[in-house]
């Protein structure tokens, strides 16, 4: 295989200290690249098929034309203008209208190996002329080349092709346009055809990771010459609004800490929390416990209390349908239906496994943004744990908690633990993120199971250290006065027997 002669490197001197950048308008990506892609230079986006390379490129062009008044030229080697228009429509833009308004120009370059014969010397002036014509026709500032690798499959003279590509990128640079080019990832190389050889300013890689059959898209800025950037890999999603990257680091720990207190909805439970006033507004509460301990009931109380105060509440139900939840809560005397009808309570019931973690996070953010509730319930968060690695789950939970806190939203999350004890890992490592941790558990004593509730921690307030027995009945959630005998915590009939025994002087002596 003939290789092009290496060209002498030309050192670039930066006049300005900060590199001029072209904003992408894509949520999160501008933060990751500290302002956008290098203006007037080329950025390579590499990844395997189906990673979203073309979508990223198209969105950069479309947003440039719509939001930043920077017209663009889309050079497509694979997709026809009709196919491109469909792709762009999928994230809410009308490509044909943009073309009609002369904000975008489309250039479809078809390279059909079958109908091409090569003989002798040639150059790619045809491509240059078409590109120059398109750039001039709209006054383009941005150019997408998707993907120039098609030339490699159409042409056999690689020496000419490589020399011409080098000339092409030099020429594009001289035109001052910001270029984004896509490339298929090769085995062990960034791109199959070594496009990184021509583009040395900025390289972004995309890939899809499969964890437990759920795909998560990941993005990484591999290289950004002359600019700081975040080198880590970040999850991203492609939604109806297009690309969205959610960098964990973009959320700071700068949220306000309110000293206002709000009721948990149950006076007795409030009584266990510093001075009987309930949770801090804007805090994050975790209710963990084994199956059937009453986590959802505790959550429903908070929702009920919020609605009674006239506040909106969003309830993410990941295991029950809204109707089922409403019926079940009626059985403990909580009728939430009127609040749903009044629009105060919104129940979002989906199974997290239907989407990947990131899609789920984005959907939740979207719903919260739209409804803007002061109180949010996530019931349960445990379902997320099955969707990703512990690190991913923790990253997702961190962003969810940060998102809620930064908006001053009081959040209650339930977590299912499998054993009798509480395993910190089972809640996705979220326990260190939360402010108040309530544990509900079942005690099996003398042939019966009784419920116990305790406050494991509650930041910024004193709290009860007792494990209180509680009952769920038609009258709702009631806490039984604590009993501590010489044998420790007693519950249910054992407590009643002990209390009766204590009332009898003889038995009391025996008991002691």
């Amino acid at each position, binding site marked *: 295989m003939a290789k092009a002669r290496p060209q002498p490197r030309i050192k670039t001197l930066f006049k300005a200290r900060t590199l001029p950048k072209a904003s992408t308008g894509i949520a999160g990506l501008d933060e990751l690249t500290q302002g956008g892609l290098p203006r007037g230079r080329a950025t390579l986006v590499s990844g395997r098929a189906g990673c979203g390379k073309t979508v990223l490129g198209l969105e950069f062009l479309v947003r440039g034309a719509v939001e930043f008044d920077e017209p663009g030229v889309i050079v497509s080697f694979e997709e026809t203008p009709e196919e491109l228009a469909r792709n762009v429509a999928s994230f809410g833009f009308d490509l044909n209208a943009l073309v009609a308004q002369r904000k975008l120009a489309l*250039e479809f*370059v*078809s*390279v*059909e190996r079958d*109908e*091409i*014969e*090569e*003989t*002798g*010397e*040639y*150059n*790619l*002036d*045809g*491509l*240059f*002329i*078409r590109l*120059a*014509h398109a750039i001039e026709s709209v006054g383009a500032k941005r150019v997408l080349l998707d993907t120039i690798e098609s*030339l490699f499959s159409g*042409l056999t003279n690689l020496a000419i092709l490589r020399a011409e590509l080098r000339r092409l990128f030099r020429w594009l640079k001289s035109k001052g346009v910001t270029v984004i080019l896509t490339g298929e990832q090769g085995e062990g190389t960034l791109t199959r055809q070594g496009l990184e050889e021509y583009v040395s300013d900025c390289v972004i890689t995309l890939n899809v990771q499969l964890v437990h059959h759920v795909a998560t898209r990941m993005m990484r800025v591999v290289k950004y010459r002359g600019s700081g950037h975040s080198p880590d890999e970040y999850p991203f999603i492609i939604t109806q609004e297009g690309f969205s990257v959610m960098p964990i680091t973009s959320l700071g720990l700068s949220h306000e800490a309110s000293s206002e207190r709000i009721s948990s909805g149950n006076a007795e439970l409030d009584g266990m929390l510093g001075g009987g006033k309930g949770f801090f507004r804007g805090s994050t509460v975790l209710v963990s416990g084994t199956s059937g301990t009453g986590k959802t009931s505790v959550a429903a109380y908070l929702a009920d209390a919020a609605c009674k105060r006239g506040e909106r509440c969003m309830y993410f139900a990941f295991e029950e349908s809204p109707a089922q939840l409403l019926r079940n809560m009626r059985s403990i005397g909580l009728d939430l239906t009127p609040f749903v009808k009044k629009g105060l309570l919104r129940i979002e019931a989906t199974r997290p496994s239907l989407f990947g973690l990131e899609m789920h996070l984005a959907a939740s953010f979207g719903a919260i943004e739209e409804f803007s509730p002061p109180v949010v319930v996530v019931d349960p968060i445990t379902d997320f744990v099955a969707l990703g690695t512990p690190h991913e789950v923790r990253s997702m939970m961190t962003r969810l908690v940060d998102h809620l806190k930064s908006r001053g939203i009081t959040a209650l999350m339930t977590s299912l633990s499998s054993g009798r004890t509480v395993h910190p890992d089972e809640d996705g490592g979220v326990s260190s993120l939360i402010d108040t941790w309530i544990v509900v558990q079942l005690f099996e004593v003398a042939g019966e199971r009784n419920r116990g509730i305790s406050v494991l921690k509650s930041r910024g307030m004193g709290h009860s250290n007792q494990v209180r027995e509680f009952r769920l009945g038609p009258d709702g959630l009631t806490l039984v006065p604590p009993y501590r005998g010489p044998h420790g915590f007693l519950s249910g009939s054992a407590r009643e027997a002990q209390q009766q025994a204590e009332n009898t002087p003889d038995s009391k002596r025996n008991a002691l």
Partner: protein
Amino acid sequence: MTARRSGALAPAPRAPRPAKRDRDFYQLRLYVAGQTARAQAALRNLEAVCETHLRGKYQIEVVDLLVNPQLARGDQIFAVPTLVRQLPPPMKKIIGDLSNVERVLVGLDLRPLPKKAAP
């Protein structure tokens, strides 16, 4: 029938199509970008091949993309020089200066003819 050839390689006006076209008639279009030595060589090579193998049944139209850039789109031109065989179908493209006569003959589907190729 003769080859249309404008000495200065100016864009050719639409060539008058022959009234009666038989299946052997070759309508050829050569795309170039400016009057480069390579463009001139390509046209010379093409004319030589045509005179040898297609005498009297071909027409050459030269398109200079520097003058008419919008014409590059229609025939999907990205390299120059590119020779497009518009007739007979199917459409064929040969890119390069046409210096290798064998390849040109293959590209124009003239290969089966066991004619002696020009050196």
